[in-house]
């Protein structure tokens, strides 16, 4: 639903990078790998948290 606050595996806080990551990869069409490097998300376990995430709040919102 929302981006997890921390990486499931190592516990690094990844939630804070989500909005910048989304903006830069979806709208500015940057290479996700480079964006993650610049954000300091280095380990594969943290990278998959951002790469594989899909925001679902907007889809769930009408069914309160």
């Amino acid at each position: 639903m929302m981006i997890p606050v921390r990486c499931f595996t190592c516990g690094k806080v990844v939630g804070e990078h989500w909005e910048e990551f989304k903006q830069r990869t979806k709208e500015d069409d940057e290479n996700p790998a480079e964006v993650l490097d610049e954000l300091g998300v280095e380990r594969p376990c943290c990278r998959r948290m951002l790469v594989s995430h899909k925001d679902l709040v907007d889809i769930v919102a009408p069914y309160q």
Partner: protein
Amino acid sequence: MSEFDVEFIDRSEDDRDARFVVRGVTPAFANGIRRAMVADVPTLSIDTLRVIENSSVMFDEMIGLRLGLVPLTTPPGEFEAGETVTLALDVEGPATAYSGDLVSADDLVKPADENVPIIDLKENQRLELEAEAVLDRGKTHAKHQGGVAVGYRHLQTVEVVGDLGEFEDDEPQIIRGVIEDDGELVPTEEFGNDLRNRYPGKEVRVEDVPGAFVFDVETDGSMSVDDLVLEAVDSLYARADELEEAVQL
């Protein structure tokens, strides 16, 4: 208390990441420090919520879990285990509630990261709550862990033992971590983690330096790397003292 020789290799500007060499410790003590950093250094983390209004799409419990995972700055020595700090959150939609919206009753304690989205709020949705952050250890819950992905490995030396035969297979010599070369510490990333790049055409032998460990420490932002390591070492000594007292006749 014995002295250890500590030498930093690199550290980030925000003091959340560091790599350093410690000399004169046993493997058991090195692992003790690592474990203390992960499980024994207490940090503040939201544990109890009083929800006043939650008309968001998430249940109270889910929001409680998300808030709990937000790291809070914990100045060492200021709080006792079990002490609580109250924080409040009040956001009205349409907006996103961020960790930075948390208002703390104590100036020393605030969210270490302000950009963590807690929940998206639509029109007519509101989130208002009071939260109690409690000081506890990583042993109790992972949200209290100060160290993230803390690890160590042996410092290694590379010795050139001779030349590679002219027609010998050129095999990769992959090594990761930090090597010591003539008293100089070289992170292996500098030569692409492959010893062939540093010693072309040479036959090399890699050996561990006894009693020297390269620590790789990252914190979640609740305290700086220095504080985390010092607190971890102090907790080890405190436990040793406790043991000594308990077994005395």
